[in-house]
Each structure stands twice: as C-alpha cells, then as structure tokens.
C-alpha cells in the first residue's frame, strides 16, 4: 500500500516565495521572500500575529492559494500536482464535519471522492478512528460529540487517505485549554507513531514550543519569516516539560523573534 521508495527531496521547499493580493486599496503583501525547507518527519509550527502570512503559507502548500513569486514544491512537485498525488491532508480550525453524515461517514468522505474500494474504505475508517481514539464512535452523528472529539474526527478524516504531510491551521484554536493540552499530547503521540510531516499554524507560544521540532516565527506587513528555531527538546515530551529551563528558553526566543518583527506593536 505505502510507497516505500520515497524520493529523497524534502517534504516542502519554498524559495523566495511571495504572494501579493491585489485589492481595491492597492496591493497587499501576504507573503514576501519566504525561503524555508521542511524535512520529512519534521513537526514545524508557524507562529505569529494575525496577518503574518502563516495561514497563507499553509494554503499555498495546499494549492488553495497561488503564490505570485518564487517557487514552492511539495514532495518535489508543484502544489497542484501534489494535491492530485494525495500528498497532504488539511485540518481547519473548525472541524467542519457534515451534520448529515455519521463520524465514520465523515471520515469516509475523502475516500469516496478519491474512489477507494468500499472494503478498503471500511478498513481505513476503522484504523484512523483507532488512531485518534474514537473507536466505537463511528456510528454517532457529529452533534453527539464534544468539540474536542469532533476535532479529533476531523484529524482522522485528514489521515484516512495516508497523506504523508498533515497541514493543520489552528486546529485547536477554538477549544479550551484543558482539552487543548490533551489533544496536544495525543497529536505528539500520533506523530511519533505515524512519522508524518506536520505543519502546524498556531497563535500560542507554549503550544508551538511543546509540539515542534522547528518553530517558524513570522511577522506581518509584509508577511515574512523573522526567525527559525530548531528545538533542542527530545522527541519524547511529557506535558510537564513545559516547566523546564530549556522550554522556557525557547519560549523566550520565540517572543524575541516576535518582538523583532514588531509583532507586539499595536
């Protein structure tokens, strides 16, 4: 099933990437001169204030936006081709489950669209439900689940077709902090079991530092990268790692990166 002979190129490679929206008030530089290479199996967080282009970058990777300058490859392909090759799954801030489908039916949605045979659909749905610890909830409808469980189901939906890149746009932004802690732990667990490359957009410094192997700090007007931090934290991370000096040191550096980009200026 899985393609074992993976090409050696990085998962995502952006060179001098720029994206300018033409608006009635003149051009808006959503991204300028973004150069970044994301290796396979990395967990990369994008952090910065609103308008810094972190979501725009993620959407460009998913071929939902089309950059106006520079080059961008996903698994060595143009984003449009990567989409057709099912290179990535996308998780939005809202779970966006269809109310008329059961949880299993929702996870089956991409598989139906991509034309998987029925028996394989069933097998995959059962497997990813287990991965996000929702086994036994397949026949429930979305309204019967809590917000955190709905977001887990939406992650399962993105995992169902075995994309090796997971693009997550503030997936836990709408959840309370206790649920968010739990899901952060589960996400790390999932990442270490599956070996996916994860790009994770967030507003939260602790979330970014806790989850990532690399943290990309971004600033607005124009959207650009101000710092890229390789985390020295081990891959195995209990929640209380957040009280260690190393963790606080990285948090401090993220904050400095944000300040350097005038992100705290209002």
């Amino acid at each position, binding site marked *: 099933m899985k393609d074992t002979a993976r090409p050696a190129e990085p998962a995502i490679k952006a060179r001098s990437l720029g994206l300018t929206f033409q608006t009635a008030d003149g051009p808006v530089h959503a991204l300028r001169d973004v150069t970044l290479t994301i290796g396979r199996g990395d967990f990369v967080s994008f952090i910065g204030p609103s308008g810094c282009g972190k979501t725009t970058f993620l*959407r460009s990777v*998913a*071929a*939902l936006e089309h950059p106006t300058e520079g080059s961008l490859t996903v698994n060595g392909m143009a984003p449009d081709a990567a*989409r*057709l090759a*099912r290179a*990535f*799954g*996308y998780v*939005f801030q*809202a779970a*966006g489950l*269809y*109310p*008329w*489908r*059961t949880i299993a039916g929702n996870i089956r*949605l*991409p598989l*139906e*669209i*991509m034309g998987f045979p029925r028996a394989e659909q069933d097998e995959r749905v059962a497997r990813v439900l287990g991965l996000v610890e929702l086994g036994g909830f397949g026949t429930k*409808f979305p309204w019967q689940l809590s917000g955190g469980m709905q977001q887990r189901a939406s992650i399962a939906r993105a995992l169902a*077709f075995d994309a090796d890149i997971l693009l997550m746009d503030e997936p836990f932004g709408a959840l309370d902090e206790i649920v968010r802690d739990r899901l952060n732990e589960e996400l790390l667990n999932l990442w270490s079991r599956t070996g996916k490359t994860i790009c994770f957009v967030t507003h939260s410094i602790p979330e970014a530092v806790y989850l990532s192997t690399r943290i990309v700090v971004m600033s607005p007007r124009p959207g650009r990268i101000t710092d890229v931090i390789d985390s020295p934290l081990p891959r195995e991370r209990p929640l209380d790692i957040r009280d260690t000096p190393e963790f606080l040191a990285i948090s401090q550096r993220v904050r400095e990166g944000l300040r350097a980009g005038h992100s705290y200026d209002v």
Partner: protein
Amino acid sequence: MKAVLPVSVVIAAIVVLWYGAAVWMNAAWVRDQAARAGETPAFAQIVPQTLNQERPVLPTPHQVVSELWKGVAGQAVTSKRSLVYHGWITLSATLLGFVIGTGAGILLAIGIVHNRAMDLSVMPWAIASQTIPILAIAPMIIVVLNSVGVTGIVPKAIISAYLSFFPVVVGMVKGLRAPDAMQLDLLRTYGASQRQTFAKLRMPASVPYLFASLKVGVAAALVGAIVGELPTGAVAGLGARLLSGSYYGQTVQIWAALFAAALLAASLVALIGLAERLTLRRMGMGR
C-alpha cells in the same frame, strides 16, 4: 398537551366573533324584509333569522360546516355537487403543477449556482415573473395553450408551476450556496470535481432549504390551480365552485369551497412537513 387550552380558547373566540359578525351583517336583510311587511322586529326576533339565511352576506360557521359536510359526504364522489369531485380536479392540477414547478425551480437553481451568466440573467426574470398579477396572466396562458390544442389539466398545471417554481428557486439557490468557504476548500484539497462537490456537499446541505421552499410552493401551486379554473367558464374544480357560487349569489357555497381549499392546502403543507421530519431524521439532522 399544554397547548390544548390556549388553542381551544383562540378557536372559540374566532367562532364567537364570527357569529357576532354574521348576526350584524345579515340583520340588514331581515330589517328590510320586515320593513316591507310594515313591521319593526325586536333584536331578539332578528337574531334567529340571521343564522340560517339562504343567501347570507356572511354565512354562519354551522352553515359552512354543514355545506362542507354535504359536499364531502352527502354526495357520490362523482357528482358535480361533490366537493370531493371538485377538490380532486383542483388537486390533480395542483400536484402536476407543483411537480413541474419544483423540478424547474431546482434545475434553475443548479444552473444559477454553477453558472455566472445564469446567475446574472435568470434571477431578474424569475423575480419579474412574480410581479405580474397571476389573475392577469392566467387567462392568457389558458387562451394561448388552448389555441395550440393543449387543454384540460395541463394549462392549469402550468399556472400552478408558474407560481410554485419561484420559492423553490430562491430557497434552493440559498441552500446550494449554504456551504461555507472552509467546507468548499476542504473538498478542493481532496481534488473533488464540481459534480462531486454538488453531490456530496451542496445537495445534502440544501435539503432543509428545499423543504421550506416546498411548503410555500405547494400552497402557491394550489392558488395557481384555483385561479386557472376561473377563466375556463366554471366547469369543474374548487375555482369553478367559487365562481358559480358568486354568479348565483350562493355565499354558503363560496365559503364551503374556500374552506375546502384551505383544508386542502393545510393538508398538503402538513404532508410536506411530515416528509421533512422523516427525511431530516434519516439524515441525522432531526431535532
């Protein structure tokens, strides 16, 4: 069950007001008759004479109910005096027109949502079509279709369809556009085709809107069928009963036909409401 008392009170109040109005409106005729006979009747003598007139200005509730009962149960259903017979004539045209109107409305909505040219060109015409008084255009449709040899149920159904397609277009355009940008983006990341987006997302999302439109549409279809019966010279149908009633001053007959039409419309709307509940429950969106 808590609603039984307030609902009964409201109905009782309507009936009391109705009787009051009937006495007040029908009293003129009684006084007139008495004046010709050189009498001046007291109020207590007038009241009984207002309740069972043959051609009252306003028939009393029991007159309407008994006429309705006579029309429904007192005749063979094939009789020209049976409200079941006339009701069926109107209902069959209503249903045919409703099906045509709903089909046309859904197709137009699909076109409007998927094609910008249609979006810009069809909607203004659909709105303009509803600003023309149906009473003005109905005879034209009947005459034009008659001249090309189309008679019977079809011209009436076309008028029904003319009225019922509009709420379906408006509701379905809104329903098919109900999915937000995020849900559409999600399908784009799967590389879904326009056809798949329609079948998996837009169509199911539009179902609640469709039922709301159908309820308005079916009532409009019934009005269309009744209006369509007026210019044909009062041959058959509830519209014909209304018209012949007004020719001969048979107010009781008019009111009975009106109530038959109202009951028919209420039943049709209730049936669609039932279909809505069953469908939404099956889809997991039931309350």
